[in-house]
């Protein structure tokens, strides 16, 4: 029983740690800011979820009759705040007009997006998959 508990907790810990590492590798490797934003917001949040589930299982099953679920609070908090902070950072990047790598499609949308306007009618032209050089 104890061995199985440790095995399950270890698996969750390793999954969590792996995703956290992937998030930071993505933060280091990816070429421009908007792409970098993808890795930490998702992989790191999921990794934290894995670690907190491991902690929850361990402290609940370690001694019978003692339930420990308050890690749930951090998990829910992170899952609510991660998209909000990602949205705010993406907004900041758009308003500062950070350079995206040249093969990004739809770069003509940066201008209307940073002014919170609707896209112009040129939307259809970006549809055919031709990359727009910046």
């Amino acid at each position, binding site marked *: 029983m104890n*061995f199985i508990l*440790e*095995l399950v*907790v*270890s698996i969750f*810990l*390793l999954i*969590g*740690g*792996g995703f*956290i*590492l992937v*998030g*930071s*590798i993505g*933060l*280091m490797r990816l070429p421009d*800011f908007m792409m*970098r*934003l993808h890795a*930490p917001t998702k992989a*790191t*949040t999921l*990794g*934290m979820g894995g*670690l*907190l589930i*491991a*902690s929850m299982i*361990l*402290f609940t099953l*370690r001694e019978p009759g003692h339930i*420990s679920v*308050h*890690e749930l*609070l*951090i998990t829910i*908090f*992170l899952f609510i*705040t991660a998209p*909000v*902070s990602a949205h*705010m*950072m993406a*907004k*900041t*990047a758009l*308003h*500062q007009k*950070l350079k995206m790598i040249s093969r990004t499609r739809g770069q003509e949308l940066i201008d209307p997006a940073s002014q919170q306007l609707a896209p112009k009618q040129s939307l259809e032209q970006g549809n055919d998959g031709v990359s727009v050089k910046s």
Partner: protein
Amino acid sequence: MLSFTVIVVSIMVVVALILNLWRLFAGPDLADRLLALDTMYINSIALIILLGIWLGSTLYFEAALLIAMLGFVSTAALCKYLLRGDIIE
């Protein structure tokens, strides 16, 4: 076995923190540094949770929750500062 896993995962999180630190110093723009800082907050929560598992204590939960809240609020405030040049309008 569990203590060994905790050490391995801690090493992974520390490596992740070092990569974030590199991005914090190297990041070409302010927004990159902001993103690195935000990720470092989350990774330090992970380290605190791992410390709690290592010591077998749930006392560190409050610290982790506080860091989570402070991290979110400071990221939001810094974004607002970069967007408007002002935090409280």
